[in-house]
């Protein structure tokens, strides 16, 4: 088996939460490459207004303080993304386990952690 990665994972998540929750406040507010080009070259006029949910534009609706609002939105986004990605992993692994059942040996080999 592998060394436990729990400590590394928790540290990584903490870094992600800090980046999205705190550091993001200091990010550039200028339009990104695509939006800049779209405005400069004139194809931005095709754009439709997006559906604006409670977290639209990386701010929490109803929270006036910009720093708090964007920080909370960032933390919510990190949490949502982590949960959905983890759920996808669980589903894929469950399906793998099921389809591997007739040949359980090949799965055991993977678990020894040998590089392939």
């Amino acid at each position, binding site marked *: *088996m*592998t*060394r436990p*990665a729990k400590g*590394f*994972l928790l540290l*990584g*998540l903490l*870094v*992600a939460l800090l*980046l*999205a929750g705190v550091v*993001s406040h200091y*990010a*550039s507010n*200028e*339009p*990104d*490459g*695509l939006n*800049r*080009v*779209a405005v400069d*070259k*004139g*194809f*931005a006029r*095709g*754009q*439709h207004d*997006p*559906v604006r*949910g*409670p*977290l639209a*534009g*990386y701010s929490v609706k109803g929270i006036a303080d910009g720093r708090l609002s964007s920080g909370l*939105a*960032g933390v919510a*986004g*990190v*949490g*949502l*993304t*982590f*949960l*959905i*990605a*983890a759920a*996808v*992993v669980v589903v*894929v*692994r469950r*399906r*793998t386990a099921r*389809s591997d059942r007739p040949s359980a040996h090949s799965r055991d080999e993977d*678990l*020894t*952690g040998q590089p*392939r």
Partner: protein
Amino acid sequence: MHVPDGFIDAPVSVGAGLVAAAGVAVCLRGARRELDDRTAPMAGLVAAFIFAVQMLNFPVAAGTSGHLLGGALAAILVGPYTGALCVAVVLLVQALFFADGGITALGVNVVNMSLVTVLVGYLVFKLLLAVLPRSRRSVIASSFVAALVSVPVASLSFVLFYALGGTTDVPLGKVLAAMVGVHVLIGIGEAFITALTVGSVLAARPDLVRGARGVTPTLQLRPSAAPIAG
């Protein structure tokens, strides 16, 4: 590089949606082989980390910013199939909850920012690793170049969609030159962030960089009775 609703017309958006769905299906299948006990716990973290870093727009030119796309990074850390799924989850969350990237443009965005960046980034990474000496430095250098190349190629993919289904009549040459030009600059930022992240994980837990397996020394298996330092 999130495409909002309305830049690309409905038929091409639907077509891109089908391509994206097919790509995600292939990745769900391919990820079965990648998601071993070491990679599986990393996938959620990689997706969450990319979401966070995508919020950190950095200035690239007067009045223009860029942010990480993350396809090359994800592919190197957790494998190309799982990596593409991670970025697709990020794009889904951004479109559904943050109004970043249109819902109808989700297919276009998944193709450009997940499938294309992963494919290009991973290919460049693997090609470079094959010719460079086997070392940690080579892994970091390869991830730098892979990330650097992946961003302008993703912008080319956007231009292709624009050529097929752009809703405005801006000359294609203008769009092409401007898009590739600015995304070469953004690619430099992508390269630094990717190399820094891969280098950090290599320093802390080299066994968790899937793309470096067989390059960095393999961890020794120890009997469970032995005391483990640290």
